[in-house]
């Protein structure tokens, strides 16, 4: 059924259709609307057989989900940014214990300086946590990915993060096609755990494992993620059969058939990039052989799929909302692993950190330069060099130059968003 609604509401309704049995809620922007909506559904009785628990921290949110999942309940929570970092110990524990928890990450920057706006630093900091990570391009895909995530998680006995851009998706009102309960029930069977805490069949879960078997445990976690590379496209295909929509999968290409330059990105920015690519191919100054590769599944990383998508191009540009400080890109590093030995030119464009707008104008400029191999290997899109250089000079001149963020804002002269 077509509806006009906020992204958070759409995700909350989709999660409710998945019949979650335990929902843990702790507020953090920009995720909060999702758990608020679920809390209302539980309280007004529209979502039954579900315990909604207001916990005292994200660490507790994930821990309650761990206990509930281990006792056989379908468990869900949502978080972002500092909240995800606060629960990290439990995040690793959930995957180590093989508990199929589904968590929405409403992607947001990490402080300091504190910043509530969107980038991918939070989820990507957890890339090695053993969780599967799926990135939604649109609100429709965010909604759909949650339904697929519960099925995947429970089949693999692994937890999944569904990542959606904070504010850009979570707070955007868009048309979505909301499935019916019958459709979701047909696609998603009830949770049948592989291991469960049950007095009738007592088991010890979470025992200590020494050097004699720890590596094997870790290898098996890796092997399961490799299995997911087959399962994810298969479940996306089944999803299409039930719901009539292409959603999910490992990755998506757009106008790559004859492309010499392929832009690689994740999440909502793919929409803006596709618009720019359309303009560069059509328009008055068209004719550019440029395409897009959107990565939906970041963990497991589809090495073979990325290599196949890039096999006929000359260069790729990874445009990412994340920065591996001290080396460059995070997504780019993964992509380079996929193209080892292919002899491609590759560039990393760091963009949109802390919610900086990624405009079509800037993308046009940077893509055109990239086509001519005229950009730095690691390029920072729309970086204010004047402000940066001022600060660098200041630090050379004075050892005690004060807090960096304050100094920069004073130079910029504003504390609110700028126009680019």
């Amino acid at each position: 059924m077509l509806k006009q609604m906020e992204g958070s509401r759409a995700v909350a309704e989709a999660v409710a259709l998945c019949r979650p049995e335990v929902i843990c809620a702790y507020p953090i922007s920009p995720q909060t609307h999702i758990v608020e909506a679920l809390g209302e559904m539980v309280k007004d009785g529209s979502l039954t057989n579900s315990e909604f628990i207001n916990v005292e921290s994200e660490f507790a949110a994930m821990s309650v989900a761990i206990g509930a999942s281990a006792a056989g309940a379908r468990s869900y929570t949502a978080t972002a940014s500092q909240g995800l970092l606060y629960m990290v110990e439990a995040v690793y524990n959930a995957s180590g214990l093989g508990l199929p928890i589904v968590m929405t990450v409403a992607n947001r920057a990490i402080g300091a300086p504190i910043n509530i706006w969107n980038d991918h630093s939070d989820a990507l900091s957890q890339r090695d946590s053993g969780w599967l990570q799926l990135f939604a391009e649109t609100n429709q895909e965010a909604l759909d990915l949650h339904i697929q995530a519960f099925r995947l998680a429970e089949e693999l006995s692994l937890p999944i993060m569904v990542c959606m851009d904070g504010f850009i998706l979570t707070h955007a009102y868009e048309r979505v096609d909301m499935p019916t309960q019958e459709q979701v029930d047909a696609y998603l069977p009830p949770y049948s755990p592989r291991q469960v805490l049950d007095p009738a069949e007592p088991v010890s879960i979470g025992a200590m494992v020494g050097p004699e078997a720890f590596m094997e445990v870790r290898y098996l976690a890796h092997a399961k993620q490799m299995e997911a590379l087959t399962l994810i496209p298969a479940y996306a295909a089944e999803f299409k059969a039930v719901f009539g929509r292409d959603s999910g999968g490992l990755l998506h290409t757009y106008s790559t058939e004859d492309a010499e330059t392929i832009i690689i990105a994740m999440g909502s920015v793919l929409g803006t990039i596709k618009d720019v690519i359309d303009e560069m191919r059509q328009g008055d100054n068209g004719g550019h052989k440029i395409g897009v590769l959107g990565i939906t599944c970041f963990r497991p990383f589809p090495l073979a799929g990325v290599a196949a998508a890039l096999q006929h191009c000359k260069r790729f540009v990874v445009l990412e909302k994340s920065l591996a400080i001290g080396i460059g890109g995070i997504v780019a590093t993964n992509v380079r692993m996929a193209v080892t030995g292919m002899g491609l030119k590759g560039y990393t464009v760091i963009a949109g950190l802390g919610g900086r707008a990624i405009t079509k104008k800037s993308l046009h400029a940077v893509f055109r330069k990239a086509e001519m191999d005229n950009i730095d290997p690691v390029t920072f899109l729309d970086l204010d060099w004047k402000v940066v250089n001022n600060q660098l000079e200041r630090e050379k001149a004075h050892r005690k130059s004060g807090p960096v963020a304050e100094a920069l804002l004073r130079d910029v002269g504003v504390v609110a968003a700028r126009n680019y």
Partner: protein
Amino acid sequence: MSFQPVKFYQTGTFTVGNRLLPPEERSVQSSDKRFNSINSGHRACQGCGEALGARYAIDAAMEATNGQVIAANATGCLEVFSTPYPETSWQIPWIHSLFGNTAAVATGIAAALKVKGQTQTRVVAQGGDGGTTDIGFGCLSGMFERNDDVLYICYDNGGYMNTGVQRSSATPSAARTSTTPAVGSAPGNVFGQGKFLPAIALAHDIPYVATATVADLRDLEAKVRRAMEIRGARYIHILVPCPLGWGTAAHDTIRMARLAKETGTFPVFEAEYGEIKSVLAIRHPLPVEDYLKPQKRYAHLFGKQPKVDVIAHLQAQADRNIKRYGLLEQGTR
């Protein structure tokens, strides 16, 4: 042979007259039908108070629920010595997740049981004093405040014994640990720091809070039984001497727990909804020296020049407990 009513304690001794009691009044531990929830063969030290406390408490909980207990366990001695892969001593469904999240994991289990309608199965969370009063305190307070249907048991041995006897917020004043060494002008743990978690639990106004020691088996079992009759958040804080950390003989574990109670150092009481209902009265008042002297962690207080002022300070703490909780008032229990 018929049974005749007897005084619970034989006059002049601490011997529990278990064998003279009718079978239905005997302790859970005295029955050959006890569950042995934590079975023999684990790797606890000789004389481990925590192993004893856990066996008493969980067996009593199993008895009270007819074997319907799921346990969540914090990282620590109890977790490490009971479950070295691939062995486990636990005869009950048991999960270890992390050091600081045990109360929250238990909340999750209780929520799952509720939503599945399996309310006959009860949840017990357990951890040492480090996992409870320090790193696990946030999750514990959250569980209390929400009044989740969990019994949390803290086995308090006054320090991080698993990692080599470091100070916790439950380490008593003046005690030597590896992070409060017996050196300098004020050797051992500082006065005026630390917390008595049972009092903090009381402040949450939860349905049930109790303290106990491994020296009073029947009292401990009765408190677990009472706790299992109640729904909502419950807390039992059990003093469990640690021969390694306290520097006491393995065969003195019960004696040390009893001395802690008899000197007033560790008050034993029971409370419902924030109100203290009963205390276990001191039977033979003793000076704190009797409790301190056998412990090497207080050795720096004695020797050639006893630290009289420090001992007096510890005696004052015990006297304060005696007054605050009415430990010398007879007929309270």
